[in-house]
């Protein structure tokens, strides 16, 4: 036992020492701090040195580390956007009430509290006058103006805020509602922004502001619930011809945590003009996605790209297909990977024998 191991607390409670005394008793505290990552390098060395020679402390350390590992199962996730929006809204209302309360307090100071009890009509008139004067004279901005200004010239229904050029940057999306429209007509979409008062962006996806709001959902997916992400992908599907939408769809395909959202992004990208970005996103999905359903759709889309004349030529990309053919857990994915490789080899004049290993 190294002499540096001393009790860390001046008076460690006896019940914490597990009946141990001396060096091993002091080591109890060190082990907890070691597992909690609270010791510096030299102190960690001390603990490691001691546990190499002390079986009981080594077992305790193992238990401590296992406890920390288990606790990670229960690490809380970030709160969902809806709950946050509710909290912000409620808090903002409370601030409004506080500020109203301050006015009443000042008026009571100025005129005495009895005036309010005995002359309600005078009080009401006074409050109206004060409110009117403050509203007309004070150089206050409305909340909507602070968010980026109300554009009265937008082609949206009267009274609906259309936001700044990028609503997603001004505030977060809290909910999306839309109604299906006739064939070939984009649906009318309503995007509610998370703020202290209802702020709504409304229009079809052909409106840039609606598109920007929906894009912000795809670009900041972790902040939103899967249903909001799913609707954003669905609604942006007709605009996949735009570079920014296409890139966002590829991002969703590569990074979204929900397989249903990834599948929807795959569906949106189907039939879009082939680009290197889409091809790479599909190959990455084929290689890394843990969901076999998503991989099946990815390989189908890759097949579609190859058939439409977008060859896969880079050695790394071909290797992904080879790996998929050999090792993918899904039989269909293995078969389709082999089929694409055969097509590629036919196209390049080289024969290939299909030999999936499973």
């Amino acid at each position, binding site marked *: 036992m190294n002499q540096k191991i001393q009790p*860390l*607390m*001046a008076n*460690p*409670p006896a019940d*914490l020492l*597990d009946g141990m005394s001396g060096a091993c008793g002091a080591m*109890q*505290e060190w082990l*907890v*701090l070691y597992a*909690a990552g*609270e010791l510096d390098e030299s102190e960690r060395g001390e603990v490691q040195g001691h546990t190499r020679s002390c079986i009981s402390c080594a077992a305790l350390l193992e*238990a*401590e580390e*296992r*406890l*920390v590992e*288990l*606790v*990670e*199962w*229960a*690490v*809380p*996730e*970030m*709160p969902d956007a809806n*709950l*946050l929006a*509710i*909290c*912000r809204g*409620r*808090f*903002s209302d*409370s*601030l409004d009430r*506080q*500020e109203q309360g301050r006015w009443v307090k000042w008026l009571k100071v100025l005129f005495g509290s009895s005036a309010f009890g005995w002359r309600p009509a005078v009080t009401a008139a006074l409050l109206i006058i004060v409110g009117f004067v403050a509203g007309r004279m004070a150089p206050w901005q409305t909340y909507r103006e*602070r968010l980026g200004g109300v554009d009265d010239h937008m082609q949206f229904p009267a009274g609906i805020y259309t936001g700044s050029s990028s609503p997603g940057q001004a505030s977060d999306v809290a909910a999306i509602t839309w109604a299906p429209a006739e064939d070939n007509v984009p649906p009318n979409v309503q995007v509610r922004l998370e703020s*202290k008062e209802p702020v709504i962006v409304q229009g079809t996806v052909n409106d840039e502001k609606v598109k920007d709001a929906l894009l912000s959902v795809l670009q900041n997916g972790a902040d939103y*619930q*899967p*249903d909001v992400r*799913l609707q954003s992908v669905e609604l942006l599907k007709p605009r996949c011809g735009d570079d920014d939408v296409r890139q966002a769809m590829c991002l969703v395909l590569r990074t979204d945590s*929900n*397989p*249903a*959202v990834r599948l929807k992004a795959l569906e949106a990208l189907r039939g879009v003009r082939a680009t290197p970005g889409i091809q790479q996103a599909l190959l990455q999905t084929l290689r890394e996605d*843990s*969901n*076999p*359903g998503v991989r099946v759709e990815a390989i189908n889309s890759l097949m579609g790209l190859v058939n439409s004349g977008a060859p896969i030529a880079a050695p790394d990309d071909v290797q992904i297909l080879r790996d998929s053919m050999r090792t993918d*857990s899904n039989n269909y994915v293995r078969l389709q990977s082999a089929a694409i490789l055969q097509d590629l080899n036919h196209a390049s004049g080289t024969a290939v024998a299909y030999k999936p290993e499973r």
Partner: protein
Amino acid sequence: MGRDVGLDMGLAIPLETGASKSATKSGEEFSLIRNAQAGDRMAFEELVRRHDREVLRLAQSLMRSPEDARDVYQESFLRAYRNIGRFRFECSFYTWLYRIVTNVCLDAMRRRMSRPEDQAPVIGHDVTGGGDFFDRQPQISADASPEKNLLGSEIGEQIAAAMKHLSPRERMVFEMKHHHGLRLRAIGEMLGTTEETVKNSLFRATRKLRASLVEIL
């Protein structure tokens, strides 16, 4: 809600974590705080938006119920709003705010312990299932198995049950350390106590949890 934390706010706390120190000293946050102290509500709301996700996360993990977390959020920021004039830049705004949140949480947890009928259901282990339809669907992947999912949920339930044996302060210290990754010194600052006391709470919490979870350790 319970005891007023206004009196012990802004106490001299010489030591800060590097991240929080730099955050406090960043010109932007400094001027936001100054403006909020001068009565600028927009500045205060901007401060709220910068910190409220983490505040709500902490409240949710400590209270284990969205409704209680919402109340803690509300009460904490209202206390901060009323007392921002007393903030004297002697610690980071983050530390000051967390001190308020932890006080509000402790009050609420103590009240809840004195009224067991008010025990909230544990988040994440609700058999009726939270989240939306897609979140409730099992992840079908090559490396996932029903046994593994079941194991995860069983372990989560056991840990949640073991946490109930901790005192409010022990649970708070343990969760702030292991769920929120805060240093013990920072936790001491936030709880308005010494690092020694925080260590003591962590040891007690660890010991109780080890005893409760002995079967799976």
